[in-house]
């Protein structure tokens, strides 16, 4: 019962905060984008390598760029109020459709990478903490340091060179074999084989972060009174580490992981480009370069929803992990 109330409180608070946050993000994004030099018509004309004044004017009219900035903002917000993200004249389709084509790919990549990073990070960190100062800790420290200092795209490139060029085990690009028309197990295996390398590339840095964080938090907990009590009760050391040390150590790890979701979206741009992965990060990058602001605002809006959603999840997780959290609210 108390658990339910805590969760309700957390949810209510988040929803109240989310509205103004999202509106602020949208307006700020919109205004910041106005500062970028050049517009969609410049890009389209430059890509075409040729233009006339008439075609430029026609493009601007189609994009609504001939309107004053404030009118453009009001139009956008007006559409948004009707749950309409607008239309991309560049690609000649609704922004929502464009995002929905990319969202599953990005979510799959991000959730896989984050889960992978959390799972591996926590395991490695626990092992390091349990053997602190002895050789497993030393060896893993070096590995973690390497992962921490190598940029994800480089890890990805090297993995591609090894696994898809030299060994030929895994595909180097895309998210599926095009035109293969697979079903059932074949389909899943195909998707998974395409997912492995990008997910690893995206996760590598975060494995290092979570491993170090887990190690530090667990070592800090080791000296607490309740740990001594647990030892005193004669519990098995494995369960002490799992139920007492790790559970406490998870609070900082999950907090940081929640914040990393935004970073992952940023990192996804690089990894998606490298692996030709049809995701939202690339869509955002392409929208920036093309000055296709309706698409970009749509992506940013959705990303802010994702981040807020992740924060809610983390809050709820904390409420479950540590009963003291959420009571004050």
């Amino acid at each position, binding site marked *: 019962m108390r658990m339910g109330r805590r969760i309700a409180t957390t949810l209510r608070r988040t929803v109240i905060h989310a509205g103004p946050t999202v509106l602020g993000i949208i307006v700020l994004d919109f205004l910041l984008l106005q500062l*970028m030099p050049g517009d969609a018509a*410049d890009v389209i004309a*430059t890509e075409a390598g040729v233009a006339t*004044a008439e075609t*430029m004017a*026609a493009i601007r009219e189609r994009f609504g760029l001939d309107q004053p900035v404030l009118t453009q903002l009001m139009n956008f917000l007006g559409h948004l109020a009707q749950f309409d993200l607008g239309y991309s004249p560049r690609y*000649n389709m609704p922004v929502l459709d464009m995002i929905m084509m990319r969202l599953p790919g990005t979510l799959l990549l991000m959730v896989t990478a984050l889960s992978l990073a959390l799972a591996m990070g926590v395991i490695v960190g626990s092992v390091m903490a349990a053997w602190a100062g002895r050789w497993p800790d030393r060896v893993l420290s070096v590995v973690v340091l390497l992962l921490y200092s190598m940029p994800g795209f480089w890890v990805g490139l090297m993995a591609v060179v090894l696994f898809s060029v030299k060994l030929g085990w895994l595909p180097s690009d895309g998210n599926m074999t095009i035109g293969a028309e697979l079903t059932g197990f074949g389909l899943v295996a195909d998707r998974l084989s395409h997912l492995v390398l990008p997910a690893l590339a995206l996760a590598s840095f975060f494995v290092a972060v979570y491993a170090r964080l887990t190690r530090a938090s667990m070592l800090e907990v080791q000296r607490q009174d309740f740990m001594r009590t647990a030892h005193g009760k004669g519990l098995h050391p494995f369960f002490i580490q799992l139920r007492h040390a790790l559970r406490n150590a998870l609070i900082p790890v999950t907090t940081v992981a929640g914040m990393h979701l935004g970073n992952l979206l940023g990192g996804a741009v690089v990894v998606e480009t490298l692996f030709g992965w049809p995701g939202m990060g690339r869509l955002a990058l392409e929208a920036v370069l093309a000055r296709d602001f309706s698409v970009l605002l749509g992506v940013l809006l959705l990303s802010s929803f994702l981040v807020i959603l992740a924060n809610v999840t983390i809050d709820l997780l904390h409420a479950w992990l540590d009963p003291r959290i959420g009571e004050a609210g």
Partner: protein
Amino acid sequence: MSTTFRTTRRAALAGLSALPWMGRDGFAAPKTGGTLTFVQNSEPQTLVALTTTATPVLTVSAKVTEGLLEYDYDVNPRPSLATEWTISPDGKTYTFKLRPGVKFHDGKPFTSADVAHSIQLLKTVHPRGRNTFANVAEVQTPDPLTAVLVLSKPAPYLIRALTAAEAPMVPRHVYEGTDPRANPNGNAPIGTGPYKFKEWVRGSHILYERNPDYWQAGLPRIDRFVFKILPDTGARSIAFENGSGDIGYRTPVALSDLERLKKLPHLVFETKGTSYSYNVQCLQFNLDSQFFKHLKVRQAVAHAIDRALLVKTVCYGYGTVCYSPVAPGLKAFHDPTPSPYKFDLKKAEALLDEAGFPRGANKIRFKVPLDYNPIGDESRRACEFFRAVLGRVGIAVDVRAQDISAFAKRIYTDREFDFTFNGHSNLFDPTVGVQRIYWSKNFKKGVPFSNGSNYNNPKVDALLEGAAVENDPVKRKAMFVEFQKIVGEELPDISLYSPLYLTIKNKRVHEDSLTADGVEANMAHVWLDT
């Protein structure tokens, strides 16, 4: 004995390859079936090259939407959707006989009404068509298989503008009464082409399938045509290396990767099929700049640049030195006379002194920013080259980077630049590709690839305007040669080189580049070893 045998066999093979049923590249008989994977640098905005001429669109368009003509490597017209054509002696009437029995993918017949509507659309919404077809007063359709273009003035370049990607023939019944820019046909096209649209997964791929009812019997040969979108150069190299990509054009990998890739036995490097459009890279001056408004300063810059070294270092040798804005590839118009300003650093120094820019503190004459067109990965390296060589004569160059939108705004709208490393596509004719850069009436603020130098010479204007309507090829060439001589002396820009583009393909791919526009054409003949 064995020598005789070999010779005989070679002669026999040579004889055999001339037989029509053999593959056109003299290989064995074509095979059918399979999936061709085209490595596509970036996502096209649309699948029909009607409202844009962006490179990513050109590759995907012609497979579905065809043109009236195709062209051999020397850009001589050959039949495609039109089987015969005549041009009246005054150059003002073009009569096209259309191929009978051609059907769009939805089963409707292709007729002269579609030609008339397409030309009309090209004239209004196509970025280049506005100029190319400007003189077309009307398109008459005396019968369903005859289309007559009536021109107000001659347009000697028009007959070379009718490829599938430059002048696509779209179905009238789909476009009539709609906004062509918003027409859904751009996202799921139907045409007369050898391949039918199947799906477009944004960010991943575009899939075309064999059109079993194609008008050319026995074609196409492959079952599926996949465009795989790979925006990363490294990823594209890997795709060619591990065989997951079959073909890509305009040198789809980093030039620095070419040497490594050339060692791989399964890759072929093709230079055919690049003669429809040549680029010329240049250093373009803003003639309103406080430095470059002086002819002597421009001449000094010209004297300071060793084009051969530039091509060797920046382009890894993949380029042809060029002194003229008309590319050497456009043999009918190119003037091969070298620049009057030879590579000579002493001369450069002397000219700068004369122009009133002596070496000052730190031996620097003046500081100037250099902007570059970010399309093409050698641009940045070229600018580093200019920074080094101009530094030697006392001009301190500060290289400024920006994305294409910012670049276009800076050069053509705000005009806040001194000089820029830029490139222009010549296309199939100087009137279409070159005139726009030097014609004073095309100094238009806000229009990319207009007269960015703000060059204004009435003599040049007269030559360009004359050549645009001159029917006599000899007189026309003379006008262009004179034009090249004048701009070569006056230097609104310094033409440097024409890039050499390679098509990279897996050796299992055959008959891919049979026309001037190579893989931008419909690729109906392409086949794969299985």
